[in-house]
């Protein structure tokens, strides 16, 4: 369970919560580059809070977490910006900017961080949108597309700068099985093509079994992680009783 020096992402004795209220504590694990980690657990157990803490969006209540070997809480603003430049986020509601078209949404981080001319930024954005299957919807506004398309557009924006780590919060939530399956394929394809490390929060056990290499099960009763292993091992009786029960109930 302990973190390895080669890990791209680590947390050691991490405690997370809202305000001063601790939801989860004593979280210690690491993730090697190119792996897909799923964070699972019952609703309200702190999955999204953990993901935000790992990605440096929220400060943990105790313990340390590092991304690319840098602790985002103590890092200088320059180091922090450099780390965030190497990460991408997909939020639960996609969080696309509603006043911008899909192309403009994907172009936005490129404009902020790349010194490329408009023509090249446009070309890159079109490629990223084509990659997620939205080549013909580039000039649509977020309000004009379906939930599945919004998720894919959110992923296109998350991978705009070729991040080494992407954080996906409930990518399959609210999607039909077909769209959910397509999204799983897309995540696998991004990992295979770019070697991207993926941290995802999900309730969809079938999706986790399909794509995740490792799985952290958060146990709300114990207030800490109940298991950290390959998701398939949770299906076998005798292994990690609570995680096994969670997987068996939801499969």
């Amino acid at each position, binding site marked *: 369970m302990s973190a390895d020096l080669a890990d791209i992402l680590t947390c050691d004795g991490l405690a997370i919560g809202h305000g001063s209220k601790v939801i989860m504590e004593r979280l210690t694990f690491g993730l090697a580059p190119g792996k897909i980690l799923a964070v699972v657990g019952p609703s309200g157990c702190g999955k999204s809070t953990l993901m935000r803490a790992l990605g440096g969006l929220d400060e943990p209540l105790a313990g340390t977490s590092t991304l690319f070997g840098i602790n985002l809480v103590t890092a200088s603003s320059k180091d922090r910006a450099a780390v965030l430049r190497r990460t991408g986020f997909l939020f639960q509601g996609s969080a696309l900017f509603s006043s911008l078209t899909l192309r403009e949404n994907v172009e936005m981080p490129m404009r902020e961080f790349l*010194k*490329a001319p408009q023509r090249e930024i446009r070309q890159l954005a079109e490629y*990223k949108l084509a*990659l997620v299957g939205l*080549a*013909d919807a580039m000039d649509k506004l977020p*309000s004009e597309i379906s939930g*599945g*398309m919004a998720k894919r557009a959110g992923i296109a924006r998350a991978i705009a700068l070729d991040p080494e780590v992407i954080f996906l919060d409930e990518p399959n939530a609210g999607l039909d099985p077909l769209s959910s399956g397509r999204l799983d394929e897309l995540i696998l394809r991004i990992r295979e093509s*770019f070697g991207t490390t993926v941290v995802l929060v999900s309730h969809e056990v079938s999706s986790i079994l399909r794509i995740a290499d490792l799985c952290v099960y958060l146990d709300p009763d114990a207030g800490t992680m109940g298991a950290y292993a390959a998701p398939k091992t949770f299906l076998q009786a005798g292994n990690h009783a609570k995680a096994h029960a969670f997987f068996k109930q939801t499969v």
Partner: protein
Amino acid sequence: MTDGLMRVVIGGTWRLDDPLPTIAVKGDRVRIESSDLTFFDSSLPAWIFGNFKNVRQLDLGSLPPRLQSLVRIAEKASVNDHLGEVPGVLAQFGSWGMESAGSWGRSFNHIGNTFMGFARVLVGRAKVNWMDFALQLQTAGVDALPIVALLGFLTGLIMAYVGLIQLRQVGATVYVANLVSLAMTREMGALMTGVIACGRTSTAFASQLGSMNVSQETDALRALGLNPVEYLAVPRILAVTLMVPLLATFATFIGVFGGMIVACAGDLSIEQYLTQAVRAITFKSFLVGFIKSIAFGFIAAWAGCYRGSVAKRSALGVGEAATSAAVLGITLIVVSDAIFAVIFNLFDL
């Protein structure tokens, strides 16, 4: 280029931060090869995809498999969820016509629902959020007193100033009190308060109801068997329709006072001004202003509630709803003021 086949050789390092080369694609058969390709990120497949996506025959066979796959993925992945074709000009004109007709239909439907809601309130069958009603009496009424006072005072002051300059030329400065009192009572008190209600209350209602649309709260009300117009719009409209006449009356008196400051600083005494003002303000002119202010209050509140209820489900939609509520409200107030002028003239009011 040989036998109509364009041969492109790529190599070196390709990074997002580096400038991409430009290329003029000739012919519809292209073969891309690599030589000493040391590193590439998504800038290279994006460059190939962007420059050669319209080529009929693109041969990537000699490229590294990962690069081939990244280009092919983008080509194949353009599968979309039921996106329509771009319509022609005639179809767009037709859509605009249909949309306009639909918009008018929705607005009349909302007005109808609002009056039905009022009728149900009168017979005691409406499910209305009375907490909202009380809150709006406070926020749309009492809280608006300072801004109404300021603008009413300045309006009276400006009218008296302009009036004095003109009336002094004919030696009739005493009539500045009549001018200010009559204008404030019949017209400006109600109009200014209506405009303030549009800028302050309409936009707030549009934002509130639009945000509720975004977060599906109005859907939740429907699911509970409640009519959103009755539950949300009726208490708001009722509160503003009651408060705007009171505010307009207040603005009228403050405006007359503002006029007195200027008039008395110049040619008139306080007694002269007040005597003339009391003579000028008849019950008829007060009634005209009061009736108008009731209508303006209803229009301002209805415009906000209507635009909020039809707002698009996005942050942009809420902003648009707030803007269009103010525009719709002010436009309808000015149009109805003109209609009132004709009607009151016909009835000799």
